[in-house]
């Protein structure tokens, strides 16, 4: 079975390695470029509480310079999906479509061993690819994480720590399960895309904010407390009156401070003058590893569930 799995998937494995090397080269080059700019412009010094002179606009300037990279790397969220579509979905579906499963399952190896071996090896491969991707991205994002203060916010969280390995394995499992249940490759690819995106975005929007109960802090307008300023993931930011009643919409601006021009200082002091308070709901930065573990557990759990379903389905529902 080891030989067969390798023979059938070596092309895919080589493609993954080739793409990985290409992507790695790009990331190393751009990462080095960001680091040297980071050092040359003294961005690091400007992040410390005691700022040296000439810091105005340095951080912003750095982010402006690498705007292209910052907007582009978010697309890497879709990389696991490639694995799910091109390796996962055809795994069982293409065998059934070409009736080669009748060949594979009538040799001396039971189909349970056939599917379990394939799942184990491919999931292992996906996990290794995911870990390599995570390490590379964590290194690449280091200057950006220093600026943000942590990797708690989704634009960093989704690329670092433990969770991305889970995304890779889950994407693969979703593709395999879809191909197994549908027995047709193309529809399975479609279903895998939808299911993976729903799982990822559903997690960010609905589950991850509630992994642990969020903290709330109320402060005078525009004076961010240290806990939030230090890279926390702010879930909600609203204005309320001194008694704690939230203002709806733009009430505070339109009613209390109408006509005050937009220059920031004036508006802020007007709001503070009326006793307006800013309430921040946030997940603090020091929960990063706990959240990573929970997210990894969630995606691994989904993967294991789908693999069990796949094995059962192969044993009982396909002929």
């Amino acid at each position, binding site marked *: 079975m080891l030989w067969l799995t390798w023979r059938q998937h070596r092309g895919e494995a080589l493609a993954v390695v080739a793409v990985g090397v290409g992507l790695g080269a790009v990331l190393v080059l751009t990462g080095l470029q960001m680091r040297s700019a980071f050092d040359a412009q003294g961005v690091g010094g400007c992040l410390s509480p005691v700022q040296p002179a000439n810091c105005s606009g340095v951080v912003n300037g750095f982010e402006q310079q690498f705007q292209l990279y910052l907007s582009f790397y978010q697309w890497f969220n879709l990389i696991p999906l490639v694995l799910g579509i091109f390796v996962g979905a055809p795994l069982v579906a293409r065998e059934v479509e070409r009736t080669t499963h009748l060949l594979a399952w009538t040799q001396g190896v039971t189909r349970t061993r056939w599917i379990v071996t394939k799942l184990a090896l491919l999931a292992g491969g996906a996990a290794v690819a995911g870990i390599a991707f995570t390490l590379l991205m964590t290194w690449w994002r280091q200057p950006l994480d220093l600026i943000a203060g942590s990797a708690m916010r989704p634009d960093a969280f989704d690329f670092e720590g433990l969770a991305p390995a889970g995304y890779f394995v889950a994407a693969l499992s979703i593709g395999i399960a879809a191909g197994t249940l549908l027995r047709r490759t193309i529809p399975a690819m479609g279903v895998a895309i939808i299911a993976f995106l729903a799982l990822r975005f559903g997690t960010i929007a609905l589950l991850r904010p509630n992994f642990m109960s969020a903290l709330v802090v109320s402060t005078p307008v525009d004076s961010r407390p240290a806990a939030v300023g230090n890279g926390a993931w702010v879930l909600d930011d609203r204005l309320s009156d001194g008694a704690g009643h939230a203002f709806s919409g733009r009430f505070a601006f339109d009613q209390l401070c109408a006509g005050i021009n937009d220059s920031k200082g004036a508006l802020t002091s007007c709001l503070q003058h009326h006793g307006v308070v800013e309430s921040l709901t946030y997940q603090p930065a020091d929960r990063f590893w706990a959240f990573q573990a929970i997210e990894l557990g969630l995606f691994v759990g989904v993967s294991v569930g789908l693999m069990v379903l796949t094995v059962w389905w192969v044993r009982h529902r396909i*002929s």
Partner: protein
Amino acid sequence: MTAAIESTGLGRRYGRQWALRDCTLRIPAGRIAGLVGPNGAGKTTLLHLAIGLLEPSAGSIEVFGISPRRNSKEVLAKVGFVAQDHPLYRGFRVDETLELGRRLNTTWDDDVARSRLARLGIPMSKRCGDLSGGQRAQVALCLALAKRPQLLMLDEPVSSLDPLARREFLQELMTAVADTGCTVLLSSHVLADVERVCDHLVILSNGSVQVASGIEELVSGHRLLVGPRRTGGDAVAGAEVVQATHGERESTLIVRTSGRILDPAWEQHEIGLEDLVLAYLRNTGAGTMPEPELAGAGEPR
């Protein structure tokens, strides 16, 4: 002696549709059995049940006394299977296909496989996708034979082949069977092929077994009767009518009988296998053969 295949009340349902129903069957070891019947009669379903690709919805099936679902590893080790259209991995070279067989089977005779393919002139370095249909069939057969099976099952092995490839395939099959003495069950809707190769016949229609018998016993157990036109019922003393055709002056009956027909009004003839099978296929309800008396006839138990 255990039968190669024995089923009791075997049935398989897809949704509400029964593909195979109440199938009680015994194929003795050492036979070369043909499985015939119209498309959709349940031939593939029966073969898939026998190798454990499918789970029975009702009843049971055993291969050499072993359940193919519960002990699939044991059954897989004893059975060679060539599925319909001889599926092979198209991207694999021929030698890689043999490597697959060698790695996935506990018993494997590499020399036999290689010399067989060499004799047939099939190049080892060619990809299976680039082989002709006849060559693919030969590779698939070779793969099934190299595991030295005690039972070889083939699903419509020659239906997609041209006449020459068909002849070559069957010749190759017969040689191998003569060498190894394994039991064979092959499905086909080409009666001529079955008649040439097989010594045992199973007729399936509408998902149930109509006939299961040695071919000799089957032929000798039937008569073609020709006599004056009968207006009343078709009953004949000492025989069971499979098919009755009434012309203007004559009636022609195909009957199953254990002895001779005593009624002197009937002129008695031998009947060929093809006519006999067609008579059964045409009259699906008419004569369901009692079982397993005939199936086991001439076979020491």
